[in-house]
């Protein structure tokens, strides 16, 4: 089962500079674990203390996963996942 995951510039060092990689998993959580197995270090940039990092946005088919159950959001074959760091500051 393949899901396209779009990787932002700042995280491309983890993916050998690829803009998009494939991963699989029935939930966002499983998908991130699969990503981690192929691109070690990536999970820590997305997840903190068992929850999504506050300033990282993840979208499944253009919907912010915060509205889809966060890490429990379901993901299926053919979906597109986009990772975008927040543009924010003080």
């Amino acid at each position, binding site marked *: 089962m393949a899901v396209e995951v779009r990787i932002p*510039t700042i995280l491309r060092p983890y993916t050998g500079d690829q803009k998009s990689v494939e991963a699989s998993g029935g939930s966002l959580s499983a998908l991130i674990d699969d990503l981690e197995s192929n691109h070690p270090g990536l999970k820590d940039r997305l997840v903190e203390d068992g929850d999504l990092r506050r300033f990282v946005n993840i979208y499944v088919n253009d919907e912010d996963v915060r509205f889809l159950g966060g890490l429990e959001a379901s993901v299926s074959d053919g979906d597109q996942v986009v990772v975008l760091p927040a*543009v*924010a*500051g003080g």
Partner: protein
Amino acid sequence: MLTLDRATYDGIVAHAKRDHPDEACGIVAGPEGTDRPERLVEMVNAAGSPTFYEFDSTDLLRLYREMDDRDEVPVVVYHSHTATEAYPSRTDIGLAMEPYAHYVLVSTRDHGNNDGPVEFRSYRIVDGEVTEEEVAVVDALPDHPPEHADETAEHQGDPDGR
């Protein structure tokens, strides 16, 4: 160094003054690999705050999709400080996630919504390290170098083809 055309510079300053006392934020997009800030995109500060800014997550996705479609990158990421100097705060540094962007800070603390000069400064922020850079404002960005110089030369050549 960051080189901006006058209209873009004025646009950023006007946005910062208009949104004062809340922080204003936005980007200037440009073709990937050119470092040319060509297209000013004002964003809504979803935090609506005098001490914090954040792009709305839906707006953020739309913006990055649009830039992707146009082969653009965020050449400049700008925001204003409304009560402090135009220098990145600790939060700004911790959340800076565009290693190739020029981070522009405008301070409206002196004149608020009114006419009058602002502090306008630019930085690179990479791995928590801040490097200030010079800002040059020009009437217009320099032209692109011709992409097909050879073809151009042919067109300008002998009409008999010699």
